[in-house]
């Protein structure tokens, strides 16, 4: 079984990002970048499937500028067999990424596609679902457990009320939640081995996809600073303030 894993290059989770002065975007100048943590979990799951003898090949794919090859190499250092970069300099939105991934799915015909449920930069939580629709594949999102069983995959999902298990026909799409696994550390010898693994680069045109934007970013601004609290004399005053000032109860 071939497994395709998507990885994204995002701002490192330790970085405290700042909005640009003109409010046009987050300031990414000289900011440390890293693999999206949810994608790291996706890679780990795919590699475990391979180690368990369920998967035969793990392919890591990323969409972005040349620099995202670093994240593909990280995935290969963690155990992916080869990599694919879809090279584009355009800031790509979830629908475009999903279309490009659909192109890769058509080329590679994986039985299972594993993605992070969201990336920590845009927090869109859309790509996996969109890919499911475009590729007409079953989807199990927010996975906390993935068990492949013959031509099905059982995915336990973290939902509001607790856990839900869905049984999907392969080929299928899984998006990972935080508690699916704890990713391993890539050892240095494996980092060096990853340098020699195959990494193919496609353009969107190679996949028959035109990169067009459907979204406009209106404004990026930092969250409002938290104001100091106030002390109330009694419960009546508290209720009054909640009703008339904060307007959170009526």
């Amino acid at each position: 079984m071939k497994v395709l894993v998507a990885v994204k290059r995002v701002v490192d989770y330790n970085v405290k990002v700042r909005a640009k002065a003109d409010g046009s975007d987050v300031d990414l100048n000289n900011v440390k970048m890293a693999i999206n943590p949810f994608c790291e979990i996706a890679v780990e799951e795919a590699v475990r499937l391979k180690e368990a003898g369920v998967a035969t090949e793990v392919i890591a794919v990323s969409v972005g500028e040349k620099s995202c090859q670093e994240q593909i190499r990280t995935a290969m250092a963690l155990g992916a067999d080869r990599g694919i970069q879809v090279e584009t300099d355009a800031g790509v939105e979830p629908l475009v990424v999903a279309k490009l991934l659909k192109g890769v799915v058509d080329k590679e015909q994986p039985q299972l596609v594993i993605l992070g449920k969201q990336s920590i930069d845009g927090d869109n939580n859309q790509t996996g679902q969109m890919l499911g629709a475009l590729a007409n594949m079953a989807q199990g999102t927010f996975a906390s457990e993935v068990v492949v069983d013959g031509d099905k995959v059982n995915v336990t999902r973290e939902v509001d009320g607790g856990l839900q298990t869905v049984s999907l026909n392969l080929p299928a799409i899984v998006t990972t939640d935080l508690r699916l696994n704890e990713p391993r550390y890539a050892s240095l010898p494996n980092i060096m081995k990853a340098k020699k693994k195959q990494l193919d680069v496609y353009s969107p045109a190679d996949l028959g996809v035109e990169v067009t934007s459907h979204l406009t970013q209106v404004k990026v601004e930092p969250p409002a600073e938290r104001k100091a609290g106030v002390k109330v004399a009694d419960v009546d005053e508290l209720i009054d303030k909640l009703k008339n000032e904060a307007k959170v109860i009526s």
Partner: protein
Amino acid sequence: MSDPYFEEEHNILRDQIKRFVAREIVPYGEAWEEQGYVPRELLKKMGEMGLFGLMHEEKYGGSGMDIRAATVLAEELAQSTFGGVTVTALVHTNMASPHLALAGSATQKEKYLPGIVEGSKITAVCVTEPGAGSDVAGIRTRAVLDGNEWVINGSKIFITNGVYGDIYFVAAKTDPDAKGSRGISIFIVEKGTPGFTVGRSLKKHGWKSSDTAELFFENVRIPAENLLGEVNKGFYSIMKNFQHERIVLSAMAVSEAQKAIDITVENVKNRKAFDGTLWDKGVIREKMARAQSKVSIARNFVHYVSWLDTQGGDCIKEVSMLKAYACDIANEVMYDCMQFHGGMGFMSESPIERLYRDSRVLPVGGGATEVMYEEVAKRM
């Protein structure tokens, strides 16, 4: 963020160590400070990740990388705020085991290096004595060849990894008549060799999770083949590794200083005082900006010198400048950072207190600032 001196594999390595530090070191560091040493399990985990084989040959399990990988290791371990953990690892990787890698015979390397790379055998280097520090020529420990055995007598002090180490590289005089630094040889001494004892575990001002020992050698008999490199040429072997040792210590110093700044800025931005936060005060803003400028410039020099070392030429002047400057400014920065923590900075539970204590030894160990500047002056 691109840094012209590093390659993609260094960036990947950095991210992996970063995650390792956050998960495997930070939550437990305080307990290790308390017990006075780093547990062997942690060192084995580091070995599994390949962190102890960064620069060792691939045939012994290493990765054959250059000093830049060690710089990355030093910087990321230092971010843990536990200097004792950092130095335990760095002594093993860049101060002790390189003696074997540089001067050892194929047989010696085959015997010891795989265990060193795995982290099952931890190494220490024993040069300093009560009467000889930076002036290596003054050591008094003696080794005499008796048949096919060397007999070692003497003592060593301030030996990092000395209490819980397994393999010791010991400098001893083999020609007492030789002048200056000549007549010194290095020997491999294994823990448990009769006559070789740990006198005491030394209590320290900082680096509390690192074990430091005074060691005694009383008629310690080791096989002739445990001589490392050539007889009477040990000083040159010690010298060979100085530059790498100093680069990683500088990387550690600068990274710890950066961490101190990060902690302090976070702290002063939240600390309410005089109708605002401390961060609103010009005197604090200016001092922290000054500290950050020094640290950023020093970090750049760490990276440049790490790269310069890979270019094959002599870089003693640059390394000496780096070692002196980086370790000095680390202490300056720590002073201000501790000051801006107020009373809390004086409490042992605050990381800045530990960073402050840990930084004090940096201008002393691995080449004192004064000696370093003399090396610079000689080349001016």
